[in-house]
């Protein structure tokens, strides 16, 4: 029974982690879909958002969950700026090497993580919120439960907020005009241009929204994680691993891929060892590349066509 308990516990914490991962990957998938660019500075944007939330908490005592409303707009504007003044001009530059924009995001990542080290030192920081260690227990609600499960309070809150944001994104993408233009551009750039979509504006908004999603993820991670300047790289890895598992540029895929990766990582950490969790992440990445190059999105597509 203890084995089963451990397994279920691992599964649940993996699911909660996966919800947050999905939020990171959704932003990446949006950017990838519209711009065909892999944003290798994605995690570093998250790091910036986390520092914003951290300083809000330390200086003004604002709860990290409230900081979502501060960090997200800030990164949205930042995204517009970066797309307008860095990524769009680079698109027009003639060069031998393709993927100039990808290398540009690498440069951005270097600048951000190093500047953060210089400005805030390399120390590990965390926000000592008072609910950090509180938890919900299954036996509190169901007295005679045969197994005991516990849910960490901040993890649950973060997961629920992540779910709300995801639903919000879904509504935005399917119901609003801007959302529809984003999806159109991601499906077929030329057709979107012909239909009168202002592609440059769509690109700016997409990068902005991608960064908003990752900023939210950062604020939600802050109460349950610690913060240091080099943190971005790890989450960039997470983002693109999920993007590949999910299928390049597919938002549905990113959602499912995030949950898969979260559960998988949680299982690796419990049963093989903490040190191997990153290796497990890449093992599933390579496996996805070899056996399922189209990612989860290709399965979804097949299933839809079958119906």
């Amino acid at each position, binding site marked *: 029974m203890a084995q089963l308990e451990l397994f279920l516990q691992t599964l649940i914490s993996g699911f909660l982690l996966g919800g947050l991962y999905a939020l990171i990957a959704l932003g990446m998938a949006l950017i990838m879909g519209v711009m*065909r*660019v*892999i944003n*290798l500075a994605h995690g570093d944007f998250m790091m910036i958002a986390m520092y914003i939330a951290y300083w809000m908490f330390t200086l003004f005592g604002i709860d990290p969950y409230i900081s979502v409303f501060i960090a997200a707009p800030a990164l949205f504007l930042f995204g517009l700026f970066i797309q307008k003044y*860095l990524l769009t*001009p*680079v698109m027009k*530059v*003639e*060069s*031998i*090497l*393709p*993927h*100039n924009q*990808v*290398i*540009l995001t*690498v*440069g*951005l*990542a*270097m*600048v951000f*993580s*190093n*500047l953060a*080290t*210089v400005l805030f030192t390399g120390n590990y920081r965390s926000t000592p919120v008072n609910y950090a260690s509180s938890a919900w227990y299954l036996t509190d609600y169901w007295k005679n439960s045969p197994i005991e499960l516990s849910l960490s309070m901040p993890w649950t809150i973060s997961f629920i907020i992540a779910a709300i944001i995801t639903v919000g994104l879904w509504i935005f993408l399917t119901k609003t005009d801007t959302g529809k233009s984003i999806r159109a551009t991601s499906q077929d750039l030329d057709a979107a241009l012909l239909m009168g979509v202002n592609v440059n504006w769509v690109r700016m908004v997409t990068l902005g929204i991608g960064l908003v999603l990752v900023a939210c993820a950062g604020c939600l991670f802050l109460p349950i994680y610690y913060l240091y300047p080099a943190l971005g*790289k790890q989450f960039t*890895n997470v983002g*693109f*691993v999920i993007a*590949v598992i999910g299928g*390049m540029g597919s938002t549905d895929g990113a959602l499912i891929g995030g949950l898969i990766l979260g559960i998988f990582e949680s299982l690796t950490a419990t049963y093989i*060892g903490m*040190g*191997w969790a*990153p*290796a497990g992440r*890449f*093992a599933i*990445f*390579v496996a996805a*590349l*070899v056996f399922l*190059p189209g990612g989860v999105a290709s399965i979804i597509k097949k299933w839809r066509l079958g119906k």
Partner: protein
Amino acid sequence: MKKFLPLIIFAILCFVPFVGLSTYVMHILILVLMWSVIGMAWNVLGGYTGQVSFGHAAFFGFGAYTGGILYQHLGISAWWGLPACVVILTALSLVIGYICLRLRGAYFALATLALGEVCRVAAENLVEFTQGNMGIMLRERTWVDKTWYFYVILIIAASTYMLIKLVMESKLGYYFVAIREDQDAAESLGINTTFYKTISLCLSGVLTGVAGAFYMNYMGYIDPATVFPLSEVSIAVVMVVMVGGAATFWGPIVGALIMVFLAEVIRSLPHIGAAHQTIFGIILILIIMFLPNGVVGDFGKLIKPFVGRRTSS
């Protein structure tokens, strides 16, 4: 004159140790040569074949660890790592090629980036084999003086240069460039793109591995954080080639010269030293925006303001 330029430079470099430079300057020169080898190796795959790799640390680290493990477990000189890594790196390149070369463009870059990280994590965790984070240390060094190390890396660099020149001026080189320019067109003309991309990857991987094996012998100490890092090797080599000029023979060498000296200068400055990554990142962004083909590739553009109209060809 231009034809003999490589020979002249080689001859000059042969006499450098007799000038009596300080050990520090010799160290820098050795690093420049080593980075130009890695840069030239990356250039084969990234510059000529157009497959941008963010995972050359995997090859570099594998080369270094080949030497280190031979020394650690078999008790033979780490110099055997140089020939041994040719075999091992070919095998590794074939495996990586099988996994990654089915991907195109930026996804290939991502896959190599991930594989580089896999290698680092594996080296950190396979403690019995690689000593984990403790690293491998050579307890006896071959030479105390840097002169011989300099000659070894000079010969490696010169052979790399000749090999790449030979390959790029043969039919193989034209296939590589054809793949870079348009993979579908190349395929429709009967070029087996996967096969030639694999060859390009093997060549690039083996040369990087040789540089890694040399690094093991030269530095005498390796650990996963120094030979498998993302920013100090994988990204650094991209920067070396981007600054120098992708798909040019001299680009990686010029790039290595600029980057190594720049790194030394910036790191030695007070206050600014801590921010050297920021400065490198800004340089990278500026290069991409204004000199996309590097110092060598855009040489005409670079000197235009100084010499006027003559270089407009």
